[in-house]
């Protein structure tokens, strides 16, 4: 890894100034960035450590919950307010990475990284979250752009606000080795019947809304409506563990299961892995 200058600013203003320097990158929890720097995917001239200066409080509003971008995954998963009012999100976050990663990784870092198999981006898209930065409020659908985010230089994520849903569920199948989602599907439906389906792990650029599936659900939020919907395999990820056709199949199967779960009596999160009993259902 190429060496860099490390800064620990004491305010977001100072961090924004430092982040405008050529070759600067922000370090939020580092669980993606430091790993990618080891692979030479990034070689910043400076790292601006914003751990500790980004807000991390979790706030309950009338029909939404906002989470400070500095909150670690462990803090979010353990939040009593979130577990009570939007349990699907608490459970999703409780299955990001592993316990040690969850003690370090943050909401802001996960959104900025927008990884191929990111769990948080799928939740943001399907729940219609709004990302707050030092400059603006951005709907998740505009925030995540192909292979990255719409963040400008010097712009820092400070929070994300998630509308509260009752009908919402997330199902992912874990990679048998590294345990990220080969494919994950987040399904939600508003009280007045507006469906959202977000898929992660299937396209290299990260999570996306599956519009064809949503259109099929517009006349009723039931799994049966997805029977003939297929995600074209052409632009899907292929790797050692799953080819594009398998990912396409998984997206359809998991979407049906997620809709059934979201519309059922006990919405939540299901994590499947090869050989698990749950996978045989």
């Amino acid at each position, binding site marked *: 890894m*190429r060496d860099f200058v*490390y800064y620990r600013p004491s305010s977001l203003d100072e961090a924004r100034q430092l982040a405008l320097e050529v070759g600067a990158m922000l*370090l939020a929890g580092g669980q993606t960035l430091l790993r990618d720097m080891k692979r030479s995917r990034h070689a910043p001239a400076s790292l601006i*450590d914003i751990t500790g200066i980004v807000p991390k409080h979790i706030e309950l509003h009338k029909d939404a919950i906002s989470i400070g971008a500095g909150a670690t995954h462990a803090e979010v998963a353990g939040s009593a307010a979130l577990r009570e009012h939007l349990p699907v999100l608490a459970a999703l976050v409780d299955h990001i990475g*592993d*316990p040690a990663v969850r003690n*370090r990784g943050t909401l802001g870092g996960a959104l900025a990284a927008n990884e191929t198999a990111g769990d948080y981006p799928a939740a943001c898209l399907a729940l219609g979250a709004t990302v707050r930065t030092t400059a603006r409020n951005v709907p998740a659908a505009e925030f995540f752009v192909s292979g990255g985010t719409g963040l400008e230089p010097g712009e820092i994520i400070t929070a994300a606000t998630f509308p509260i849903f009752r009908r919402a569920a997330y199902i992912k199948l874990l990679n048998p080795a590294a345990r990220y989602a080969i494919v994950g599907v987040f399904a939600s439906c508003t009280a007045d019947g507006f469906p959202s389906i977000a898929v992660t792990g299937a396209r290299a650029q990260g999570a996306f809304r599956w519009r064809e599936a949503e259109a099929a659900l517009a006349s009723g939020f039931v799994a049966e409506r997805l029977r003939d919907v297929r995600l074209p395999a052409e632009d899907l990820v292929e790797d050692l563990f799953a080819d594009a056709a398998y990912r396409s199949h998984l997206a359809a199967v998991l979407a049906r299961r997620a809709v059934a779960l979201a519309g059922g009596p006990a919405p939540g999160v299901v994590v499947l892995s090869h050989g698990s009993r749950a996978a045989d259902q």
Partner: protein
Amino acid sequence: MPTVSMTVNGRAVRGEVEGRTMLVEFLREHLGLTGTHVGCDTTQCGACIVHVNGLAMKSCTMLALQCEGAAVATIEGLAPPGTPLHPMQKAFREHHALQCGYCTSGMVMIALDIARRFGEPDEATIREQLKGNICRCTGYHNIVKAIAAGARAMAAKHA
């Protein structure tokens, strides 16, 4: 070069490091605490787990400079020479939870984090919580048994 100060196993330490120096490198190469291992170096295997301010973290994926002022605990701090093994270490020995030992310090450090959060966890919880720790020798059965027994012993000690 920048300097960093922290406490490691209760002892105040200070060192000159590069920006890119990872915590595990600081522990092993600057402080000679080689009980913490580097396995995959890609945040997956957990051989490098230490506690930072009481929380298990992967020391291959945090900068030494990020630990300025932090309290770091490593496997060496659990039972200094001449003192009895920590109950969790004892459980690992009794249940034959290691063969080559490479993953063991990370396993013990995450086991303590599991015990902190769950008290006396059941088998399913232990297996789920070991997601970020890889052992290529044992097949995990004895590690799971050891963690259950170690957590029980710790709970009994504090009762």
